[in-house]
């Protein structure tokens, strides 16, 4: 894996919001088929980094390469077109629209009648119904139901199902299991592993180092806008990584067991 070209390569990324230095010289590589745990405290810069990758923020300086090509313009639409999908707890679904309409929002399939694009509701219903069954929504939920009827876990399932359905190459999960029940959390984590096994790059953002250590291949720790650790999960234990976070990024020498 280390030999292949990284799918996403971030080089010396800096981002300022006015006087606030949100990202400080961040460089990191992400490979396809890998699951990365992106960990750090609140305000560490995890979400900011991700927002650059999915086109919401443009960096102040530094470069981002996607599949070997330098990214010139940052816009969510462009990131989506490249196959980068972000799954966030509170964002991604419009409560006032049906599951089918949400599923295809922004890239609706159309049937043209006299050149006028009409929504292909048949296709939208059929495909989204198949996916919501596959991803374990209650049997009485139909694709025509508005999203506001769904539970937190079901919402996550819809978003993940959508990410799979559109053959994305990168799926970024931002705290995907917050506010979920234990069963729902396990379900979401299983789905994340499935995505990775299908050859996607999965970036899993969380506070919970112990949870992500079990799932991820590699852990990247951020602190104060800087990358402070980048280690494969078989080279460092969760406890060691937690210690790194607790020490605010300084890698502490392991004390010899007495």
């Amino acid at each position, binding site marked *: 894996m280390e030999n292949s070209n990284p799918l996403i390569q971030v080089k010396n990324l800096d981002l300022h919001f006015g006087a606030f230095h949100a990202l400080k010289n961040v460089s990191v590589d992400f490979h396809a088929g890998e699951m990365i745990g992106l960990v750090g405290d609140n305000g560490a810069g995890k979400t900011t980094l991700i927002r650059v990758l999915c086109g919401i923020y443009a960096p102040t300086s530094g470069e981002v390469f996607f599949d070997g090509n330098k990214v010139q313009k940052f816009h969510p*639409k462009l990131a989506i077109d490249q196959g980068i999908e972000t799954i966030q707890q509170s*964002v991604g679904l*419009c409560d*006032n*629209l049906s599951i089918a*309409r949400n599923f295809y929002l922004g*890239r609706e399939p159309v049937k043209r009648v006299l050149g006028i694009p*009409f*929504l292909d509701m048949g296709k939208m219903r059929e495909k989204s119904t198949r996916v919501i069954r596959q991803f374990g929504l209650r049997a009485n939920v139909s694709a025509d139901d508005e999203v506001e009827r769904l539970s937190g876990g079901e919402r996550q399932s819809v978003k993940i199902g959508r990410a799979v359905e559109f053959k994305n190459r990168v799926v970024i999960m931002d705290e995907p299991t917050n506010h979920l029940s234990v069963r729902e959390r396990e379900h979401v984590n299983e789905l994340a592993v499935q995505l990775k096994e299908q050859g996607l790059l999965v970036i899993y953002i969380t506070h919970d180092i112990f949870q992500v250590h079990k799932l991820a291949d590699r852990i990247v720790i951020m602190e104060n806008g800087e990358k402070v650790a980048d280690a494969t999960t078989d080279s460092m234990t969760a406890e060691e990584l937690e210690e790194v976070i607790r020490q605010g990024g300084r890698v502490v020498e392991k004390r010899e067991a007495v």
Partner: protein
Amino acid sequence: MKQIVRSQGFGAIIGVVVVLVVFSLIDFSGWWTAQTITNVTQFTAILSFVAMGQALVIMTKEIDLSVGSVYGLAGVAFITLEPSFGVPGSLVIALVMAAFVGLLQALTVVKGHLPSMIVTLGGLFAVRGIIYVWTGGSVHNFSADARIHPVTRLFGGELFGVEAAIFWLVVVAAVLGIVLRATPFGNRLLATGGNRESAESRGVRTDRVKIWAFVLCSLLAGFAGILTLCNQPQTHVTLGENMELEAISAAVIGGCLLTGGRGSIIGAVLGALIVVSFRYELIALGAPSSWYITFVGVVLIVAVIFNQKLARFLGHSV
């Protein structure tokens, strides 16, 4: 049936039925006359155009207070430019001016990240001021030739045995209804109002959607002004004053939620029917005309409460 009940216009359907029943009970002979029906449907059609545009803007979680002034501006432009550009020419210019006002306000709202209530309040005053300056307070009329011009007849007379305004309302409402429910643009418009951040994260260019909504709103208001003047080709400076309030009321009575993402075209039309019916019937019953606005206020508040209860009953979180 379930579809109808769950649709956003359901509250307005109930409202229309109640209004018709009540007016029939208290004033059957006065209400169900050809004269009343013609007037009410004519005014409803005009207000509906403005209300439909307003509904589109409200569905994107914005508001347009300038529609009354834009309605007036398009009307004044249509009449005063007719001698120089002819009927079709002045009609096109009037619509372009309306659309331009909408575009300008939309860009200010979207690019300046400003609240649309303030920007369009400014638009309301600015455009009304332009009307005053332009007309100098004088009344303009169409010439006899312009009154019988085929284009004037197309929008002002009768078409296929119905009032032209009604005919155009049916056409435009059908088109807008289909655009809203059955095209990608409609899906994105509702998404923009429902949850802008989510829509944006799906690659919807919500700025553009809002700009289109504002331009369409102004265009429809301008078109309503033209329909009015084709029917009665005479301008005065107060043309369209307070119309924004009636249009917003109609849209809200018709089930548009100011929180965005919910509403319907048919609801806006039915809301307009309710507002106009009240205006007409109160005057017909001999109530002082100044009472009318009080009643619209009461009806508006009652309708909002009713629509909210209905929405909660149907399980929406509002």
